[in-house]
């Protein structure tokens, strides 16, 4: 098991947002979390990344407990997140954003190889290298956000709604990129509202409702599941 979340409870002040969730992700998998607005998907990812601390439960990465570690140490272990809303550094250049993505990576040759791979994956970023990131289009910003998180050479990538606000064609190319990234050996945990696209890409999926996991199954079964079709795939 690469990543294991055990009975995780997380609160904002007095209000509990996650009521004890369990997740398991094996090396090399693409796993998706589906759920309506406010289900607790982002909370889950933020807790894995260490920006939120659980009130109960545990998170293990390769058996290493993460739930008490500061966020920057977690990145160093090889867990990288593309946060909801991209959160790129708008007043820094594309190149500077990528440099910061590799902030934890001290191996220079590895860094150069990573950079080459990323420019291959998203050629437009190479062209825009010296442009301020805030002036990129929405799609380009999403590519930059993914590229930035790949610069740390992660073994698992957490993505929070990467298709948000993008035109269908762009969504397709982002998902294609994710497939390629996974083919290169990066495990992926994908949070999506675009359930159909996510389930077509993923091996397995979880459905979240009001801070609980309510269904866990293979992507194939979820696509066929009447409940899931009704609630997330438009019937």
């Amino acid at each position: 098991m690469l990543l294991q979340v055990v009975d995780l409870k997380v609160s904002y002040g007095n209000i509990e947002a996650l009521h004890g969730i369990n997740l398991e992700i094996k090396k090399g998998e693409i796993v998706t979390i589906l759920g309506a607005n406010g289900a607790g998907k982002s909370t889950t990812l933020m807790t894995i990344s260490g920006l939120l601390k659980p009130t109960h439960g545990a998170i293990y990465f390769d058996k290493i407990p993460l739930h008490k570690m500061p966020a920057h140490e977690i990145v160093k272990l090889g867990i990288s997140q593309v946060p909801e809303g991209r959160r790129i550094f708008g007043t820094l250049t594309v190149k500077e954003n990528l440099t910061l993505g590799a902030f934890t990576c001290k191996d220079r040759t590895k860094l150069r190889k990573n950079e080459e791979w990323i420019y291959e994956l998203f050629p437009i970023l190479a062209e825009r290298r010296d442009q301020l990131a805030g002036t990129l289009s929405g799609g380009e910003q999403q590519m930059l956000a993914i590229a930035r998180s790949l610069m740390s050479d992660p073994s698992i990538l957490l993505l929070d709604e990467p298709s948000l606000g993008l035109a269908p064609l762009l969504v397709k190319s982002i998902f294609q990129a994710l497939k390629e990234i996974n083919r290169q050996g990066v495990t992926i945990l994908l949070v999506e509202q675009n359930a159909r696209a996510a389930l077509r890409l993923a091996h397995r999926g979880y459905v979240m409702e009001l801070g609980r996991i309510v269904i866990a199954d293979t992507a194939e079964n979820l696509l066929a599941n009447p409940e899931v079709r009704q609630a997330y795939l438009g019937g």
Partner: protein
Amino acid sequence: MAEFLQQFVNGLAVGGIYALIALGYTMVYGVLKLINFAHGDLFTIGAYLGLTLLTSFGLADRVGPGVAVLLLVVMVMGFVAVIGIILERVAYRPLRNSPRLSAVVSALGASIFFQNAVMLIYGARFRVYPQNLLPKISLNLLGIYIPLVKILVLVVCVIMMVGLYLFIQRTTIGTAIRAAAIDQEAARLVGINVDGVITLVFIIGPALGGLAGLMVGILYGQIKFTMGWIYGLKAFTAAILGGIGNIPGAMLGGLILGVVEALGSAYISIAWKDAIAFCVLILILVVKPTGLLGERVAEKV
């Protein structure tokens, strides 16, 4: 013309000092969105520390004026940086997740504490720096005579500003400081230790502020425990002028303020010196509310 140049150079020297102090305000504001009201008092501490090192340890007699000044610079910057780190740990870090107003009150409290501490240790009257520290000579530049000490102050300011600029713009750590100022959570998600960045900012800002205090002591020869108030206010004005949070902006704002003040008091009236400074501020904020270099690019969502 000579008169103009003379005043211009005077303005640059004072402006450089404003700029060094302004950098501390702007960097702390950048990462914490907090006005460090105690910053002016760190400047005062720098001035008094320089005095102690010069008089009690007789630094200048032991090693000669050149080495003495260099040693002073290093020691004052180091010591005030340590106070800066302690200030952040004690007064600001415990309130990181409290309402903004708590931190502001804490900043004001720290300011009062420092000011009274300096007064109790050194007394409430003016203190004078040793007059024989640097040779009293003037250099002839472009037909005007500029005292050596003024040139020295200018050179030190320029070195510090260029050094800081290169550090912030060209190094990865510098880029990380800028990133933490833009979005702390995103910075943590790429693996930046934001607490570390904040500590670093509380090393750099106070070190530069303390150095500015030392240079005021050397330049004017007189210091007082309340000096941090007016210098702090001017430097804060400079930071706003350049666009608070923006590092090159603080440098530019300081220099402009110094020059405008010097020219204004020469050609209009010295009594209006402070008023002129604030008029400039108001004028620029009316025309450009974000300051000269503030918020160059709006972030697309």
